[in-house]
């Protein structure tokens, strides 16, 4: 009987150890999603120029969907501005498609200090694009990280903390 108890306890310890090891390994270097970008996604900037997402091939691309009516988005943007400056020479490019009308977006670009490309589109178009990129609920902020060869590495619905975002970018940027 004592032997049976020993095996039960040993088995449970092994289970917990296995789960813990998996979690630890995941934190140290979880595999990326590595899903190709859907084709033909296009945005229009505030001057009316159209861009496909493959325009930024060769860069680590962070696409951050935002809006002027989205308070968590406005909280997050100053951190994006800071990291764009910090990591520009290591190949980071941030773009900010806004689910908003162009006039509202223009009025916020300067106060927020946004110096990376900002795009706009009708809510229906933008929601359709976000859905193709994996944002089922259609909420904001929503970000995807795209590898230099055009594969989606990460998705995030909701605001990044500054530490989370910097850590994520460091994980994929060249040293």
């Amino acid at each position: 009987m004592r032997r049976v108890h020993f095996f039960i306890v040993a088995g449970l310890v092994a289970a917990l150890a296995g789960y813990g090891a998996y979690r630890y390994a995941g934190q140290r270097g979880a595999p990326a999603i590595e899903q190709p970008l859907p084709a033909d996604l296009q945005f229009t900037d505030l001057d009316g120029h159209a861009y496909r997402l493959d325009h930024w091939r060769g860069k680590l691309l962070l696409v951050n969907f935002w809006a002027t009516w989205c308070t968590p988005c406005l909280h997050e943007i100053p951190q994006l501005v800071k990291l764009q400056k910090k990591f520009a020479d290591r190949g980071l490019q941030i773009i900010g498609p806004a689910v908003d009308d162009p006039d509202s977006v223009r009025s916020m670009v300067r106060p927020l200090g946004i110096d990376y490309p900002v795009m706009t589109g009708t809510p229906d178009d933008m929601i359709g694009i976000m859905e193709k990129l994996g944002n089922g609920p259609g909420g904001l902020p929503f970000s995807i990280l795209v590898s230099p060869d055009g594969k989606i590495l990460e998705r995030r619905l909701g605001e990044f903390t500054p530490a989370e975002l910097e850590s994520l970018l460091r994980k994929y940027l060249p040293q």
Partner: protein
Amino acid sequence: MTRTPFVCAALLAAALPWAGAAEDFWHRGAQDAVGGRHLLKADQAFQLLGAQRQGDAVIVQWNIAPGYYLYRKRLRFDVVTPADGRLDAPALPRGEKIHDAFQGEAEIYRGHLKVALRWPPGEDAPQRLSVAYQGCAEVGVCYPPQTQLVDVVDLSR
């Protein structure tokens, strides 16, 4: 017989890491959870219950899911039918006050929301309304402004 508990524990040991892997796979593949919480779509989070005429008012109501809220200042009502129909300024109920560095003071609604709309005396009652609203989830995700056309059901006849 005495090996059964050990076999069960061993199977558990083998399965747990894979359960974790499966959990990660789904979370990373389809992003609809924040902080471990599954997020609703806007029409599920802010369920517009329609518009009913009750006497000299049209009542518009929402059920707002727990963990979500609507902004008072983002509610908007317009008459679609009749084409020249108008509404008086809506008497919106007071909401819960919140303060935000970007939005300043704002009022929000949680739970059930009921708004009574009236129209100028002598004019035709609204039969179809455009109702616009916008809200957020408390976990830090906001939804685009929603606009719905609703037919007014006349309960006063």
